[in-house]
């Protein structure tokens, strides 16, 4: 932003030099500093995209807290030339700027500073990964059916809104489902989300791998080029089961990517799915033979569908709950229940009925999101709250994106 000298040297042979310095100075001078608007309370987490900080508004009447996501600049090559904002940041900004829904994390504003994009989101104290972790350690204590059902309903409600707006999330997993201190679900991290209205290219051409492996739908595992919003519903089914048992339902091992051109066949992950749901057949999924990886299915051992008998050992006794789970984990994406249909499922008509305050009646006090002050990048401008009774969960799923290509 201070290339004054370089700009002046520039020469166009027909025209006087077009000097942008003045323009830039004008813009730079009226840009508000983040520190003038927010107190940085501390550092929350980091990932491939950049880092997230907890912040508080400096405006007197605004007591709200915010999460500021600072994107790392997209650099390339050894010289690390800056090549503009990442596709992921582009998507997230473009979509979040348009989406307004109670169950989608709200974007307050976007700020530029330090040659980086800063997205200011409403703050959510918890996320499902952290809540599941809290219920699993040190010993397993199941969540109440009311809490699970409230989480599930709100998650479906948010995703139904996304789908109605032609947005596919493509990375639903517990770490990306945020929950406010009051128990309101906020679907977060739209960095992989995209519009799917009449794409002119198969979605596969854009991103070779979508959705974190344990939550990845069978059609994706079988190499489908034209997958649909049904992949989000599969992931929600997996999350539903995980909320009940506190363990990932299909905990496969990811086959490592050998080179960037080919996507490995995820045999182990499919085996985990077949172990519970049985092998997919032409009866259950009529177009399965059109899936690119279909020939690979011959090598699997035959297993029965044991979902129902398994469910009976779980702490939730509702048969409708099992029906809904089975409908979300339907092999055939065309037969899989939609978010809209799921919201009207009989399971949500039964007691306990879902509510917005998912924690109501829960005797447990959830630990607050851990924040630290060790980050050197955006220095905390206020005292860090002393609020970390448990160490932050060290889990790859927090930060890893399911992608191969850039």
């Amino acid at each position, binding site marked *: 932003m201070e290339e004054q000298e370089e700009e002046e040297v520039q020469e166009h042979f027909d025209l*006087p030099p077009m000097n942008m310095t003045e323009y830039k100075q004008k*813009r730079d001078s009226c840009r508000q500093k983040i520190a003038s608007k927010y107190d940085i309370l501390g550092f929350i987490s980091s990932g491939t995209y950049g880092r997230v900080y907890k912040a508080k508004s400096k405006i007197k009447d605004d007591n709200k807290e915010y999460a500021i996501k600072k994107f790392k600049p997209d650099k390339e090559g050894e010289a690390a030339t800056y090549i503009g904002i990442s596709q992921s940041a582009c998507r997230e900004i473009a979509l979040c700027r348009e989406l307004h829904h109670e169950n989608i994390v709200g974007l307050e504003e976007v700020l530029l500073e330090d040659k980086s994009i800063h997205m200011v989101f409403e703050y959510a104290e918890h996320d499902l990964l952290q809540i599941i972790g809290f219920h699993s350690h040190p010993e397993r204590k199941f969540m109440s059916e009311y809490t699970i059902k409230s989480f599930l309903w709100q998650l479906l409600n948010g995703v139904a809104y996304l789908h109605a707006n032609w947005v596919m999330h493509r990375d639903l997993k517990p770490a990306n489902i945020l929950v406010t201190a009051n128990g309101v679900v906020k679907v977060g991290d739209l960095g992989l989300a995209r519009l799917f*209205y009449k794409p002119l290219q198969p979605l596969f051409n854009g991103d070779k791998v979508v959705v974190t492996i344990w939550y990845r739908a069978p059609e994706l595992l079988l190499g489908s080029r034209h997958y649909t919003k049904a992949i989000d519903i599969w992931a929600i089914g997996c999350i539903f089961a995980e909320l009940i048992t506190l363990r990932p339902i299909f905990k496969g091992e990811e086959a490592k990517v050998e080179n960037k051109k080919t996507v490995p066949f995820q045999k182990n992950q499919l085996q985990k799915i077949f172990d519970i749901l049985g092998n997919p057949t032409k009866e259950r999924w009529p177009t399965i033979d059109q899936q690119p990886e279909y020939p690979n299915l011959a090598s699997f051992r035959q297993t029965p569908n044991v979902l129902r008998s398994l469910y009976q050992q779980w702490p939730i006794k509702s048969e409708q709950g099992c029906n809904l789970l089975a409908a979300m984990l339907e092999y055939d994406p065309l037969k899989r229940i939609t978010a809209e249909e799921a919201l009207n499922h009989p399971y949500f008509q039964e007691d306990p009925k879902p509510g917005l305050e998912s924690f109501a009646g829960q005797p447990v006090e959830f630990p607050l999101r851990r924040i630290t002050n060790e980050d050197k990048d955006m220095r905390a401008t206020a005292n860090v709250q002393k609020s970390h009774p448990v160490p932050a969960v060290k889990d790859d799923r927090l930060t890893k994106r399911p992608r191969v290509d850039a």
Partner: protein
Amino acid sequence: MAANFWTSSHCTHWILDRRRVAEAMKEDLEYVNIDTLTKIKMWYYGIIGKIGKRLQFRQQVVATAIVYFKRFYTKNSMRSTDPSLVAATCIYLACKIEECPQHIKHIIQEMKHALANLGGFDYDTSKVAEFEFYLLEELEFYLIVYHPYRDLTLIAKDLKLEESNLQTAWFVLNDSYRTDVCLFYAPHMIALAALYIICVVHAEQYNDNNNNGGSGHSIANSGSSSNPNTMDDSGILGHNNIHLAQLNSSNSVIKAPGAGGGSQNNPTTSSSSSNEGQGINNRNMVQWFADLNVDIEEIIEITQEILSLYSIWKDYEEEQVPAMMQALKMEFDESYELIDPQLEAMQ
């Protein structure tokens, strides 16, 4: 949003007041007149279109880049900024938003090629990337743009519009991006105006020609493609076809259907029957527009704005653009030097 234009940022933040746009042009108009400024802008839209063609973008990507460019210049003057840097950055950002990312180097390379005759393009990767921040800020981070193509396709289907007419309407939409209608009107209104041009205004011309024993009809044949999805950046303009331009002069008063203007100079009664099976039934179309639950006056406004483009286009010559740019960009320093001696003399 994507499913609902009315709640989108395009509708709530980027349907603009003409005064604001006029305000942004003030500085430029001190140096060149409005026609010249329009031509300079047209030249840049053309550059964006050309690069889109060379890199084989879908029309929507080009359209989004042009809208970004226009939005940028509703807040800035051309004189105080470098439109070629703005254009390159708009293309780069539009590709990302429309999910067909291009390497920044390709775009710079194409800019150098396209601007070879007009001062070249002296920006490297980091300059374009840096400018992306400024562009994002000027766009207020509202990046999803609606285009009339989708509406046109839907309406055409509903009307069972003939393929050739749909295609011509599509070309009119392409041309509409050289006007500012996308800054002032909702996309579906622009789509309707394109249909109006084809089915009402143009059909009259069409019927006149036919009645006069006019032989072929080239506008309807102006494209080679029959699939709207593959229709790229072609416009009526790009096809050396001046039928619509003629139209503007021969039919400069466009009347609202159902507003009492249908009787004079309207050959439809006689010709519509003879043209059955042609897909355009002028009288039915006039009625169809009259029955629409939209502001017909607005459609007329858009129609006029698009048609006036064709009249400017008539005396547009690319070779003039460097001189126009020179006038627009007249050196600050030079002008000071011109003024300074006088000032000194006065003192």
